[in-house]
């Protein structure tokens, strides 16, 4: 059973401080993110029309969000017409109840799962467990996290914080019937996962998935994956339940021509991922249920600046280029959505009531690398800055900022403040006190000059 993020204590800076000291973690993250960065850059560079695809992707998503109510109804009609059943869930509890009841109705106590962010977001596995239903994650990285009773730390590769030898340890420890001579060679680890899950795929009667896209026009659901565990779950069980965030919608079939280019290249850095499954309603005799999930999305939609976060297609390119994510790791964000997109999505979905959630908009140097790679052009720095204006501020900081604002509002005040600082320049200690000690812990402070620029100008130029 993988652990849950809900109610996690701490704050991003505190969590990150611990992570930064973990040299193994930093090595693993650096290696993985730099590998994928290079692959992404190379396959994106192959397409001369990348910026045009990006502009189209952004506009399709914005248009969908603007007309989301209409397209959701169209989706519902199309799925129903094709033999599926559509359910609506206001929040996590409602979605979990719907899914649990559907599983119970089949009489099964075990389900297989395709990697899905939506079901992680709502803590579905815990809800199922509480009702005596065991959910088996089948994606390799999810399996590593689940077997290790660990937290996911990346959107695409939840076990990115683990290297091959750590994965081998987890398998040897937790996987029944694993060969004792298992090596840490990645093909050997993949083979172990194959053997471990084979029987389960063949005997499972119920599968739970998410979806990367839903097409309103046709009622089609789309799942992109690599390993084939997705195909196993989507195809073999009698009953398929898909839990999908309402923002995953695309209006028309044709829109996939854009997103099937944007997503794989941004995500795994491949021209195309190994497997993509598309299905419309109940297929080949299966029973199909679609659960449309709100869980805070309509609140995000109401925010003029923040709503662009709903364009996200969960590719994780922003995580892979983020210098903060690379050093802090995914767990520091305390959410299934880590990295830059998590820093703008989590505070919007959960609010900023906890120290952790209120610290997330500040978990960025605003370097802009995330915006540059985002395939749907989410201006993450813009949303971060907007959220910072809404975040609770400490009283001392508020007072300091007020004073600074007062000084900056009038150049004569600024000049006086500069002269006062210059008079005290010899007294400035090498190590600053209070919150500014955070600066001098690792850096020297520059020498304060004998004269400000404005006084120099006044003395030399105005005369």
């Amino acid at each position, binding site marked *: 059973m993988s652990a849950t993020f809900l109610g996690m204590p701490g704050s991003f800076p505190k969590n990150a401080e611990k992570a930064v000291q973990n040299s193994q973690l930093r090595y693993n993250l650096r290696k993985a993110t730099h*590998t994928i960065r290079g692959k992404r850059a190379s396959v994106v560079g192959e397409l001369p029309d990348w910026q045009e695809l990006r502009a189209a992707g952004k506009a399709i998503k914005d248009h969908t969000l603007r007309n989301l109510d209409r397209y*959701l109804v169209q989706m519902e009609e199309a799925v129903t017409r094709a033999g599926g059943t559509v359910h609506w869930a206001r929040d996590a509890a409602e979605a979990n109840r719907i899914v649990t009841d559907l599983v119970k109705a089949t009489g099964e106590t075990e389900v297989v799962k395709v990697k899905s962010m939506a079901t992680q977001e709502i803590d579905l596995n815990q809800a199922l467990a509480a009702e005596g239903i065991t959910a088996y994650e089948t994606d390799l990285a999810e399996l590593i996290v689940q077997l290790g009773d660990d937290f996911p730390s990346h959107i695409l590769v939840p076990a990115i914080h683990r290297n091959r030898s750590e994965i081998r340890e987890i398998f040897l420890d937790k996987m029944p019937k694993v060969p004792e001579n298992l090596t840490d060679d*990645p093909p050997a680890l*993949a083979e172990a996962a194959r053997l471990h899950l084979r029987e389960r795929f063949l005997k499972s009667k119920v599968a739970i998935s998410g979806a990367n896209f839903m*097409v309103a026009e046709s009622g089609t659901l789309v799942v992109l994956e690599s*390993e084939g565990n997705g195909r196993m779950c989507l195809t073999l069980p009698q009953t398929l339940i898909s839990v999908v965030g309402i923002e995953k919608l695309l209006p028309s079939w044709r829109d996939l021509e854009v997103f099937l280019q944007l997503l794989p290249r941004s995500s795994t850095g491949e021209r195309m991922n*190994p497997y993509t499954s*598309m299905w*419309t309603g109940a297929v080949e005799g299966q029973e199909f249920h679609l659960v449309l999930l709100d869980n805070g999305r*309509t609140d995000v939609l109401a925010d003029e600046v923040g709503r662009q976060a709903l364009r996200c297609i969960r590719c994780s390119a922003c995580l892979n280029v983020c210098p903060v994510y690379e050093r802090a790791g995914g767990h520091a964000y305390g959410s299934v959505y880590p990295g830059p997109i998590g820093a703008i999505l989590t505070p919007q979905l959960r609010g900023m009531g906890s120290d952790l959630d209120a610290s997330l908009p500040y978990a960025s140097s605003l370097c802009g690398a995330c915006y540059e790679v985002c395939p749907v052009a989410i201006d993450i720095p813009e949303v971060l800055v907007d959220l910072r204006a809404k975040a609770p501020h400490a009283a001392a900081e508020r007072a300091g900022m007020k004073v600074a604002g007062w000084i900056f509002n009038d150049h004569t005040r600024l000049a006086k403040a500069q002269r006062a600082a210059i008079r005290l320049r010899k007294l400035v200690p090498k190590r600053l006190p209070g919150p500014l000690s955070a600066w001098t812990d690792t850096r020297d402070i520059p020498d304060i000059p004998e004269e400000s620029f404005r006084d120099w100008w006044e003395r030399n130029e105005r005369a």
Partner: protein
Amino acid sequence: MSAREEILAKIGKAVAGAEDVEIPRDYRTTQQVEDLVGLFAERVDDYRAIVHVLPAAEVPAKIDELVAGRRMIRPGGEGWEDLNTADGVVTSCAVAVAETGTIVLDHGPGQGTRAQTLVPDYHLCVVRADQIVSCVPEAIARLDPARPLTWISGPSATSDIELNRVEGVHGPRTLEVIIST
């Protein structure tokens, strides 16, 4: 109020007054490729799948050669029946995409069910040259969303260990493609 009504009402309120956007489609919807077969073969090979390019007349013999000694499911023909004990499957396809090295099955005649092309460890797929299109938009235009579709780009793989691609997890570990010209 039902969840459905409540969600729809919240959406209506959230976007009221927001401007709609035009969708610019200035990206390429087709590409001039001189050698579609060559590009497709190269891109499939990049995924470490096995590729053969053969004149149509030689294809049946090649299939016989490749499947000899294997328990093969042959949709639309005489072959092995039991899914769980089959060694492989031989299918045709609906469309293939040169730029991305992708085969798309719509599980029509000769393409088997979704399970038949998934459970056996070996997938042999015959692609006719005229089924190859240049890019993704051309493929989308040729496909019918009412059918179940499986897009296949190389053998089963994972990038979950240190973000490096490793071939062979749950799907067929060997993908072999015959391009019939």
